[in-house]
């Protein structure tokens, strides 16, 4: 055990002596989470709107005002002709166009249904879909308002019944993407740091030839392995603490569940990542290869296939099955569950079990390969 401790000390000293490694280990995760937490927003806000009002009455202006006062849209410009609308959308200066026909108010007052045209730039299908949903909500409420107004002026008429939905949103009532994305970014940053640091740890020694020196000493392989990994567990847990503090105190993401459970699961996740990093470093011959493998075989696929940004339930069934191999997927579910829903182990045990299973198999694989490479 003493030997292990010596290696741990040596490794820690080496990491913290190097200014850039020190930065990588401590400052980088905090900076990343802070910047990424602001960047990773999927809210559709400030949709630039171009208005083409052929009607120019108080009713048509009332409608345009409802759009602009809704908080979802921002006036990009007003135009007089449909050609002007085309130009705005083609140049990307507007994402939505409101075209109010000349007989709009006449139709409304004459009790004919007025046709309102809304043009959307569908390039970004997702944002366009959401912007159209906003538009439809605004138009419906204005329509209802106009109807009520007419009935108020003509009290004998009957108001037909309607179904009035009462909407309640759970877990993230304000529908803010930050509450969903920041825990995700936290998991992602944690993976990035822990895995890239460990994947270099062993290859580096091998590349500069110090591995041979270590091997001729009476240190046993497992002691060497533990000695090299424990510092990263340590750094990983420091990083967990730092990024958690940023998420809770800087971004005010509500942490509804148990902090203890969060640490326990983060520990499991960090161990799995270290296992993967170790595996990479036993496969790669050079540091360059190690980083390339880490990046292309793990970071990028994990980024896409963990449910971090893209919903897994939208993926084809075959790929959904593949995502079961991605440890980040389970950690995403865990961290979002604990943060947003406040759920506990009774709900999260399958994910935790999966993390343990992946961790154990990756570690065994890495250790086997490591023993082979040194023999």
């Amino acid at each position, binding site marked *: 055990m003493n030997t292990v401790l010596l290696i741990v000390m040596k490794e820690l000293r080496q990491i913290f002596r190097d200014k850039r490694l020190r930065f990588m280990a401590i400052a980088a995760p905090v900076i990343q989470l802070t910047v990424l937490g602001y960047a990773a927003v*999927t809210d559709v806000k400030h949709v630039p709107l171009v208005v083409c009002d052929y009607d120019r009455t108080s009713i048509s202006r009332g*409608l345009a005002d409802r759009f602009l006062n809704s908080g979802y849209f921002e006036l990009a410009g007003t135009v007089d002709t449909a050609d002007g609308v085309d130009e705005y959308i083609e140049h990307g200066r507007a994402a939505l166009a409101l075209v109010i026909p000349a007989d709009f108010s006449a139709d409304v007052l004459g009790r004919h249904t007025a046709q309102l045209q809304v043009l959307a730039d569908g390039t970004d299908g997702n944002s366009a879909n959401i912007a159209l949903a906003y538009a439809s909500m605004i138009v419906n409420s204005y329509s209802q308002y106009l109807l009520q107004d007419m009935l108020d002026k003509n009290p004998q008429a009957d108001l037909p019944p309607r179904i009035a939905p009462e909407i309640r949103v*759970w877990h993230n009532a304000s529908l803010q*993407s930050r509450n969903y994305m920041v825990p995700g970014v936290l998991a992602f940053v944690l993976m990035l740091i822990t895995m890239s640091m460990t994947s270099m740890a062993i290859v580096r020694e091998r590349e500069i030839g110090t591995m041979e020196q270590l091997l001729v000493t009476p240190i046993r392989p497992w002691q060497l392995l533990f000695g090299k990994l424990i510092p990263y567990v340590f750094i990983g847990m420091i990083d967990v603490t730092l990024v958690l503090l940023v998420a809770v105190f800087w971004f005010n993401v509500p942490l509804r569940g148990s902090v203890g459970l969060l640490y326990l699961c983060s520990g499991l996740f960090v161990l799995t990542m270290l296992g993967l990093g170790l595996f990479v470093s036993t496969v790669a011959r050079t540091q360059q290869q190690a980083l390339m493998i880490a990046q292309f075989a793990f970071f990028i696929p994990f980024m896409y296939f963990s449910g971090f940004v*893209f919903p897994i339930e939208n993926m084809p069934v075959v790929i959904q099955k593949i995502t079961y191999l991605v440890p980040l997927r389970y950690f995403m579910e865990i961290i979002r569950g604990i943060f947003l829903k406040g759920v506990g182990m009774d709900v999260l045990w399958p994910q935790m079990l999966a993390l343990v299973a992946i961790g154990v198999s990756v570690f065994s694989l890495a250790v086997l390969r490591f023993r082979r490479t040194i023999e």
Partner: protein
Amino acid sequence: MTFRRIKPIVVKEFRQVRRDWVSLMLLILLPAFLMLMVGKALNFDVKSVRLAVFDQDKSSQSRAFIRAFTNSGYFTIAADVTSYRDIETSIESGRALAALVIPADFAKRLDRGEDAPVQVLMDGSNNNTATTALGYMNTIIQTYSANLRAEFMTRRGQRFDPPIELRPKVWYNPNLSSTKFLVPGFIGFILMMSSVISTALSIVREKESGTMEQLAVSPLGTAEIVIGKTLPYFIISLVSSAFVLGIAFVFFDLAVRGAIVWLYLGIVVFLFAALGQGLLISAIAEKQQIAFMMAVLSSILPTFLLSGLVFPIRSMPWLLQILSNVTPVKFFLIIIRGVMLKGVGPDVFWRELLYMLLFAAVTLALAAHIMLRKRRAA
């Protein structure tokens, strides 16, 4: 400076890449493979919302109302629940994303001509999916409601016309598929990865193994060494871009709507910018590890997060909107989406082209400056 002088370095670099098949595969095959996976798998389309239904009325009216949801194609009934407690557990465990609660007097109220309230509960964890799903629910309820009203009025011999009818029309991507948006973006992402990282590492590798000194004492100028070393990666990136474009066309039916010439003009200018960034990193970093970290931090993350690849730049705080200009991918994405989806040309995106040229000029000049200074100091 002639190509004859650079040629040996180019040949050597190519040979090195070829011998290191792992790297070559990573540079050519992996992007193509990732493209395939990403294009097939990723989208934000909300297609089947898992709905828990708590029908307290159990009348023909309430059943017809529920059918309006299932018939829309956007909803599948995940659970027939019998209490609010059930709703809670099905949303918490993720079995249902939304719940619809119909009160016991639903049919009675409608028959009497009163408004009938229903309750919609939504798991808001993923705001994006939730907003879209709420949009669908709203539309279904409104349409159903409007039909009911019209029926009610007809029975009384009156007419009912809703004051306004919305006629949405979508340009460029009428079925609002997010794949059409994400695939061109991913081309930018892949090009950025392969060009920045490979250039950065190829030079730092020489520095680290000490062979840079050998090159430095050769009669070649710094510019010649640098061009010789980047040219192969430039060519590899071009090949790789043709590959991914082919995949986009064959598998995702994403034809280039505009002129392919403009697309390649955009790609070439973008590659200059990306190589400039890679060279700047290689000028600063002395170790591959550091170079790689710098490349990851300055290319993967900004590309994924700040370029508009997935997250709309408009929704970011203004400081980040300004910061988003650090990545040339942002400008490239405007160009590639413009050419591929909208079919526009440089008259629309000349500013973006100019910006990338400026970016390339600045990074290359800085890289040259640092390299020359270090060479003189050595």
